[in-house]
């Protein structure tokens, strides 16, 4: 698709992109620290990825190849809309293949294929403050971050164990970055948490409504919080993928009829398709 001449490259004006880039650079300099930025109104509702879109717009160059995933899938409404948005306003090439993309905007997943140096992963973040549901006052949570008072985060995990017998938090699982800032990794499943640390790609987090940007530079140490006697465990459904047979990927449970029938399929559609193209077949593949 040809870029529209009515928009500046990637929709936002250059001054706005400069402002966002400054926030991104600051975020990269202080891994895990939430940098406030002047979030703009975007032509989409809050909660649909306004933060991620602004970060993507600020980092995209005409030579980039752009991929968008929503819960791992390339073909859902949110992913298709944002991909089309940048095709139209930036004219960048797009792809669904993780390995070919240079900028990947994601909602709630990290791709299964390991990321490489030179790639940028942009997360859409609904609520950037990991302490928010425990401490409603922003002034207080800021102080807790600056003074490294993170005991409260463990209170949340304690509550989980006391109520469920194990740490039941299965997504947006809090992590500690470089032994300093506690960070909300956006609502990715905790299965993806180990991929956050020591990652060769740059990871950027944008929260549009909450007006915060934070970042993980490549090869950052990221540790999931836990208790000594209840260690962190990256969990997934205990099944192979019904379509490609993969046993190492994060799975979605799909209800297939009204008689209790269900199947488990890879949430990362690109990973699943690549495996099927390579000849792997799961038990439910027709």
């Amino acid at each position: 698709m040809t870029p529209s001449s009515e928009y500046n490259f990637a929709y936002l004006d250059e001054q706005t992109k400069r402002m966002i880039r400054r926030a991104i650079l600051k975020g990269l300099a202080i891994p895990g620290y939430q940098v406030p930025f002047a979030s703009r109104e975007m032509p989409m509702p809050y909660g649909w990825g306004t933060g991620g879109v602004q970060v993507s717009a600020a980092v995209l160059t005409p030579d980039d190849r752009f991929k968008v995933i929503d819960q791992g899938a390339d073909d859902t409404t949110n992913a298709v809309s944002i991909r089309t948005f940048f095709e139209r306003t930036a004219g960048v090439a797009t792809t669904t293949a993780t390995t070919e993309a240079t900028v990947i905007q994601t909602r709630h997943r990290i791709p299964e294929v390991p990321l490489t140096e030179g790639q940028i992963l942009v997360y859409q973040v609904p609520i950037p403050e990991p302490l928010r549901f425990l401490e409603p006052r922003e002034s207080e949570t800021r102080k807790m971050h600056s003074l490294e008072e993170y005991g409260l985060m463990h209170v949340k995990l304690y509550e989980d164990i006391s109520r469920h017998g194990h740490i039941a938090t299965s997504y947006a699982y809090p992590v500690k970055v470089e032994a300093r800032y506690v960070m909300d990794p956006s609502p990715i499943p905790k299965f993806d948490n180990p991929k956050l640390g020591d990652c060769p790609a740059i990871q950027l987090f944008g929260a549009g409504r909450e007006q915060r940007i934070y970042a993980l530079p490549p090869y950052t140490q990221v540790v999931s919080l836990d208790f000594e006697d209840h260690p962190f465990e990256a969990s997934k459904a205990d099944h192979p993928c019904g379509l490609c047979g993969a046993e190492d990927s994060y799975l979605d449970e799909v209800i297939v009829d009204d008689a209790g029938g269900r199947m488990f399929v890879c949430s990362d559609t690109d990973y699943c398709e690549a495996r099927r193209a390579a000849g792997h077949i799961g038990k439910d593949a027709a």
Partner: protein
Amino acid sequence: MTPLLSVQGITKRYGAHIGCADVSFDLYPGEVMGIVGESGSGKSTLLNCMAGHLRPDAGSVVFDTRGHGPRDTVTMSEPERRMLGRTDWAFVHQHARDGLRMGVSAGGNVGERLMAVGARHYGDIRDKAVDWLERVEIDAGRVDDRPTTFSGGMQQRLQIARNLVTGPRLVFMDEPTGGLDVSVQARLLDLLRGLVRDMGLSAIIVTHDLAVVRLLADRLMVMKDGHVVENGLTDQVLDDPQHAYTQLLVSSVLQV
């Protein structure tokens, strides 16, 4: 003997109005100090200044820290002061709701201070929480219940357990028995007296209830209009009040 807390010339003004003026005293380890006075006499202001919640306009609050000896808590850095606030100091609020996390279970409430100072073993934290619930006479079976399901007296006892779990050396109490009925008050006072004696705690208790100080406090300070008008041993002050206001205060108590 070094005083645990040495307060010198604490003054706090709210504009032209005086919160408290030029208050000085020493508190020795194991001592319980009562501060009484009518509403608006500056007792809560004074307590908040000492506990680091308010910054006094003048004066010093020197605390004998474990690691570094006597330090002025007014001029120490905020991280250090907040660290004191969750290790060596404890603050019991008048309304338990101010001092508790109402959305977190009783066990989590008690465990919070432990986790804040680095405890990371769930089993140990829970054992300690259960132990403390029993010490404040809350059934161990309620450990996973939220404080919203507790009665007022239980909430107040839970608040005390939550504060004492890290073994503080100094407890600030702001009307700890306010809003409780008399029989619950009596049990709470009994419990507090036991804990203070067993743990060798020092405490500063602000109250307008003379019965509370009679039971708990070794020494008494009477405040009026921001000034200390009389101080001395509790029995001495209550049985032989010298200042006109203290005489009024003592004679105002109904004898049943």
